């Protein structure tokens, strides 16, 4: 039962509105640094745009989707109204105000530091304050998810927590803990410098804190997608979830091993010892496990649906799947992109293999394929699935399919050449490439192709918003109660370990201390690791 529909819709609408803005910026960036762009421009605009694109796509958009979807899950899975409605609105407004506060200095060119902050570059304090407001808003959501779960458990001591809610709370706890790294970096390191209270900063320590956030944030982005795999997809294609326990174990594994792995972003950084880089590499390898479990469970669930529809044969059942169904299409596309992106990820996490692609366009290609591709396409699916229940109006299936196809094609056309030029050695974070140079000219064709992919994505994004906007004027239709997938075997009793988080949070924090404790402590003690801040967008 969805009660606070306005609250949920507000989160989704704001998320998709800022997504639209950031998508335009992204396409522009692809264009200006490609050979298609003949005119010369102020490179500062490029960094300004990248900062806005990254901050919106990384912090504002997925956070709002996770929050809105989280409230929808709470009400429909627990079958009771959300506790803390006013707090939820307060969280929403904090995110909204934070996004505006952060984007004003970025638009003015006062904080072109990119969304990963990159100290010792320091921009206008309002940018960081805005980001902190977004995070604080999302922490309200984290607290509300925990409170709602606790209240439900008190009222239903003998029932297993519904899978969707279990996964949702897992994601909120993961975010609550992983955001601490960037929060420490901003509050104790960057803001004092941005406000002029200090003029030096320990850039190495700041990067370690940021890596604490930067990798697990990906799993926070990913969890709504995985919830959609497990609790929307099997129901939408008329099947059953293959295993409820396997799903819970996957989410638990994310909570435990998504955190102590961020230093693989710092493989070429000198301030972290090689031994700790190896330890983080080991745990990064482990984080492939929940994804492999998920791929297996989801494919098995699809096979169940197909055989129920009369699918036959070892592989023949694939053709009997309901390919006309947008959720089927989105999930299939998402899994394909997850497969390619995951394979690339295994290269990034290997200490030696990473050396050949570190800081190249391969990395940008990789995270666009995983986040923009595998994850965001399921955000579309979530919106398509949820919308009729929120608005009481049906959406256009045909347009949805076109949109999903375009997003999939666009993302492949964008990211595959992007990976390739990375292997050729094209560095990332640059506004300008001289394609007339003999050493760079072989990359020109691939970069052009990437830019074309960017335009396809832009068209798909416009179509997505069109589907939702047109839905506002569609004929009313009763969508019924919002339901999640039913497992093949409904568990009557499940072990306490798969129904609570205490043990897993303890392991998550324990592993964080083991893998991050010493590198952070050492950098905090060393005084000579401070460097003068470099203010960007300062006086002329």
């Amino acid at each position: 039962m969805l009660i606070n529909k306005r609250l949920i819709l507000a989160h989704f609408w704001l998320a998709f509105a800022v997504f639209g803005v950031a998508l335009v910026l992204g396409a522009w960036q692809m264009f200006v640094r490609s050979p298609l762009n003949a005119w010369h421009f102020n490179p500062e605009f490029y960094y300004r745009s990248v900062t806005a694109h990254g901050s919106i796509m990384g912090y504002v958009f997925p956070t709002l989707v996770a929050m809105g979807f989280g409230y929808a899950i709470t009400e429909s899975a627990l079958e009771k109204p959300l506790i803390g409605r006013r707090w939820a609105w307060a969280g929403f407004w904090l995110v909204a105000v934070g996004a505006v506060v952060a984007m004003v200095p970025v638009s003015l060119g006062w904080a072109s530091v990119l969304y990963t902050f990159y100290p010792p570059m320091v921009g206008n304090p309002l940018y960081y304050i805005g980001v902190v407001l977004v995070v604080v808003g999302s922490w309200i959501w984290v607290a509300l998810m925990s409170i709602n779960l606790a209240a439900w458990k008190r009222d239903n001591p003998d029932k297993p927590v519904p899978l969707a809610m279990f996964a949702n709370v897992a994601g909120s706890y993961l975010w609550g803990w992983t955001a601490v790294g960037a929060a420490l970096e901003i509050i104790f390191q960057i803001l004092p410098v941005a406000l002029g209270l200090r003029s030096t900063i320990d850039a190495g320590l700041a990067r370690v804190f940021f890596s604490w956030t930067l990798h697990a944030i990906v799993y926070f982005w990913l969890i709504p997608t995985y919830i959609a795999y497990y609790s929307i997809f099997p129901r939408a294609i008329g099947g059953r979830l293959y295993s409820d326990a396997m799903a819970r174990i996957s989410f638990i594994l994310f909570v435990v091993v998504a955190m102590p792995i961020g230093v693989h972003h710092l493989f070429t950084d000198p301030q972290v010892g090689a031994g700790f880089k190896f330890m983080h590499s080991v745990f990064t390898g482990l984080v492939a496990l929940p994804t492999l479990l998920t791929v297996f469970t989801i494919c098995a669930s699809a096979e169940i649906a197909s055989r129920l529809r009369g699918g036959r044969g070892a592989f023949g059942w694939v053709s009997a799947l309901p390919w006309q169904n947008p959720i089927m299409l989105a999930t299939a596309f998402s899994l394909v992109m997850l497969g390619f992106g995951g394979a690339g990820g295994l290269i990034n996490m290997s200490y030696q293999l990473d050396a050949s692609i570190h800081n190249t366009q391969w990395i940008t290609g990789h995270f666009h394929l995983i986040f923009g591709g595998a994850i965001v396409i399921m955000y579309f699916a979530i919106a398509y699935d949820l919308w009729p229940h929120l608005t009481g109006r049906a959406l256009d299936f045909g347009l949805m399919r076109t949109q999903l196809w375009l997003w999939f094609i666009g993302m492949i056309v964008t990211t595959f050449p992007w990976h390739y030029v990375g292997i050729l050695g094209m560095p990332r974070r640059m506004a300008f490439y001289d394609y007339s140079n003999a050493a760079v000219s072989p990359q020109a064709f691939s970069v052009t192709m990437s830019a074309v992919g960017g335009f396809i994505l832009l068209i798909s994004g416009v179509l997505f918003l069109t589907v939702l906007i047109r839905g506002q004027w569609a004929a009313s239709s009763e969508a019924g109660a919002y339901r999640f997938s039913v497992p093949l075997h409904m568990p009557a009793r499940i072990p306490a370990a798969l129904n609570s988080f205490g043990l897993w949070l303890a392991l998550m924090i324990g592993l964080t201390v083991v893998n991050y404790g010493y590198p952070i402590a050492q950098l905090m003690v060393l005084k000579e690791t401070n460097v003068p801040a470099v203010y960007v967008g300062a006086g002329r």
Partner: protein
Amino acid sequence: MSDQKLFSLRNPWFSTSVGVTVVIAVLATLAGLIWLPLAQPDLKLSGIWDAICSAAGVPRASSQAGSVQADFKTSDVVMTSEMLTRPSQVSIGRGATLAQRCAICHGPQGVSDANSPNLAGQFAAVTYKELNDFKTGARVNVIMTPFAVNMTNQDMLDVAAYYSYLPRVPSSHADAKIPAPLIVTTGAPMRNIAPCGSCHGDIDTKAGSPWLGGQSAVYIKAQLHAFASGTRRNDISQQMRNIARQMTAEEIDQVAHYYEAQP
């Protein structure tokens, strides 16, 4: 749900998950901190503790014995973004008096047509660094060196504060029609040249980089050639020498005339 206590070694979920996690963490630690460093012959470690310290990233002082020393005087000024940005009124006043002796070349208001740098409105850190470099000998000039050697540190701070306090005056060569050369707006990445504007104004300013708008073209050109030939070498870490050596004579000409025409 289950009545069995979760946080108990008798609970297989607890013992297995904690056990597996601990085993993986211990194995990863042993491999990362002991086995892998010892397996690398190049590291020349003296034992297990040395291996752990090395792999954990404990910093150690390296010997300076074999390092190469420059055979000329280098600048000893340490630049920060905040440096000399908040001068006192007293300092500006003292600087105004001291600057009387600079007026013959740099103009009574910090601007002149003598092809010497226009100092009005220049960042204090920039003026201070150059004075200090003339004093220490890191930068040598027949006219400036004799002035600077007799200045105290406070004198140099005051003069720098005074000139940064003066308003910038529109250039007498101002010409808004000269388009910004590519080297100013985008640099030349393949030659490792950052855009001039990313440090010297218009796009951004960086600590220690002078404001170039309205400076004499003759002066800018002479300095770029001096950097390129190595006769001027007080730029920290060769920042300007590396750029000037890669610039063509035509580009040097273009930037000199472009900046002279800027406000």
